[in-house]
């Protein structure tokens, strides 16, 4: 029997790593991937709690999150392609047209 808190710590670790990726990396693709990591960490949490409570609602929310992740990836990559086509760069801090 693995205590639920272990799942929480696992999820916490993944989430933190994802946050680190988002705030430190320059490559937009990597930032998108890090967001996927964070969403994934949340899913672990939901399923673990669902198991704890013995109900399937956590599973349902995990499915919603996956749908959300799919939508996010599709739109994010669409934006990325449009941006790359215009500027030929993938680095987030070079996306500075709106800066003054």
């Amino acid at each position: 029997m693995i205590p639920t808190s272990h799942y929480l710590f696992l999820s916490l670790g993944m989430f933190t790593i994802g946050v680190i990726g988002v705030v430190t990396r320059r490559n937009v693709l990597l930032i998108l991937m890090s967001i996927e990591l964070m969403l994934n960490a949340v899913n672990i949490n939901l399923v673990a709690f669902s198991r704890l409570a013995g109900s399937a609602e956590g599973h349902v929310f995990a499915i919603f999150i996956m749908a959300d992740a799919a939508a996010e990836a599709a739109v994010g990559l669409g934006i990325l392609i449009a941006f790359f086509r215009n500027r030929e760069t993938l680095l987030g801090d070079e996306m500075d047209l709106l800066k003054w």
Partner: protein
Amino acid sequence: MLDQVTFYFFATLALVSAVLVVTRRNVVHSAIFLITALLATAGIFLQLHAEFLFIVQVILYAGGIMVLFLFVLMLVNVDASMHRPQFNRQWGLGLLLALALGAELTLAIAAGRSGLPLGDPASAKMLEPSTQVVGKVLFGEYVVPFEMASILLLVAMIGAVVMAKKKV
């Protein structure tokens, strides 16, 4: 015993791959490790007796989203950004803040462990057979959010097509 071995194996795999995702220089390698992390998560779902979620994770996350990522990776020039600095200028501050967030959450869990019955999960029997249970909840109580999710996906699809199109 087998249960614990499975969990710690997949947990270690997931965490190590996650670290490698954010530290690799080559984005394709990052993507490969992200796939590993996602599959390890799928393994943890399986260990939690969430079979349906396990297979959704494999088909949708690994088989769908990551293929999309790799597809885009092949379209764009990966090599060009490989020889540039990988971390932005405020990476130190960002790391610090992220770690602070992690520490805060750790404290929260540690504090909550005494208050909530976080120790022992319910028996797996309550969720048997899990696919049917998930289906009943999804299409019973949560049917409206489900439909909304489908609209969200539709909008995202149209948005992605419009943005990625060459000439508008």
